[in-house]
């Protein structure tokens, strides 16, 4: 049976698409699934670095579509999970190096061998984005609690729906509970209401993310990291588990502990 193909997109750059792809891919591999991650951001590749695989690249996605190598040759095995593979973007080419048709054929091939294919879309709404959504069965839209990011997410949702990806799911990244409580950050409910799509997960802002990108170790593997826990929960939701959304209201006991320095 063919695997499921997700595209992770956002419109706006810098909201956490690549981080999301790296963590969901690693999480699914940890659950024993066969996963292929595709970096569709040709010319600005980053997924390799976030996964810590930048030194292993020999061939890339353009080499595959130009038939300079076989598909298996370009797929890089993850250091931690052998069931996780990365198809890197080309760094010295641009988005026109791959056509939507070629992308579609590539994905048709890949999903035969994997349980999940997750495509990391570039920012923007141009050809790179159009390539990235070609062949996807489902879309995940990543946004942050800012006017510009939510606005772009809305536009992307409209474009996804026009391309037949009619039920995209939403991840709200870089959430700061303290600012929400103060009324200085839009509420989750407000954003979900405005965008009118299904909420897949909330990821808190977490300093550990910076550390994880420094080291090339996805945060989903770090115990006790809030963002890691959030990505782990999203991973399990993708697998059909019924995991409640992370409680945003920190309990009174937690607050007290933090106050006296126990936490």
């Amino acid at each position: 049976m063919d695997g499921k193909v997700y595209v992770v997109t956002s419109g706006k750059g810098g909201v956490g698409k690549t981080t999301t792809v790296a963590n969901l891919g690693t999480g699914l591999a940890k659950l024993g699934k066969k996963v292929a991650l595709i970096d569709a951001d040709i010319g600005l590749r980053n997924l390799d670095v976030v996964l810590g695989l930048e030194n292993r690249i020999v061939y890339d996605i353009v080499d595959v579509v130009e038939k300079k190598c076989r598909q298996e040759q370009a797929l890089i095995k993850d250091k931690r999970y052998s069931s996780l593979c990365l198809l890197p973007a080309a760094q010295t080419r641009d988005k026109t190096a791959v056509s939507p048709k070629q992308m579609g054929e590539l994905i048709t091939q890949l999903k035969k061998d994997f349980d999940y294919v997750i495509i990391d879309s570039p920012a923007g709404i141009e050809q790179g984005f159009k390539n990235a959504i070609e062949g996807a069965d489902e879309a995940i839209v990543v946004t942050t609690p800012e006017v510009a990011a939510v606005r772009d997410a809305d536009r992307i949702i409209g474009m996804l729906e026009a391309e037949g990806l009619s039920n995209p799911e939403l991840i709200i990244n870089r959430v700061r509970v303290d600012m929400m409580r103060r009324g200085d950050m839009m509420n989750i409910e407000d954003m979900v209401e405005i965008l009118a799509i299904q909420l897949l997960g909330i990821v808190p802002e977490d300093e550990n993310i910076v550390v994880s990108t420094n080291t090339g170790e996805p945060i989903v593997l770090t115990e006790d990291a809030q963002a890691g826990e959030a990505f782990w929960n999203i991973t399990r939701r993708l697998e059909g588990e019924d995991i409640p959304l992370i409680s945003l209201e920190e309990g009174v006991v937690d607050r007290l502990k933090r106050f006296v320095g126990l936490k």
Partner: protein
Amino acid sequence: MIDLMKGMFNKDELQSKDLAKERLRLVLVHDRMGVSPEVIEDMKEELIQVISKYLEIDKDGLEMELDRQENSVALVANIPVKQLKKR
């Protein structure tokens, strides 16, 4: 702690999240309909001309915007009338 107390006492004050939500709501109404703010401005000018034929209105106090409620979009205009024109 100070933040917590601020949150308790300043409930009536406009919070920046409300401003964000309002600005987002308005910008999305235009984005989704493909109507630019300039079009609204042109429409406003023409509307002033038409209404001015019949009523004396406060042109500076005139407000016009697209508003979205639930699933419908409305053109909402608030036009302060100074007095009926003597004909």
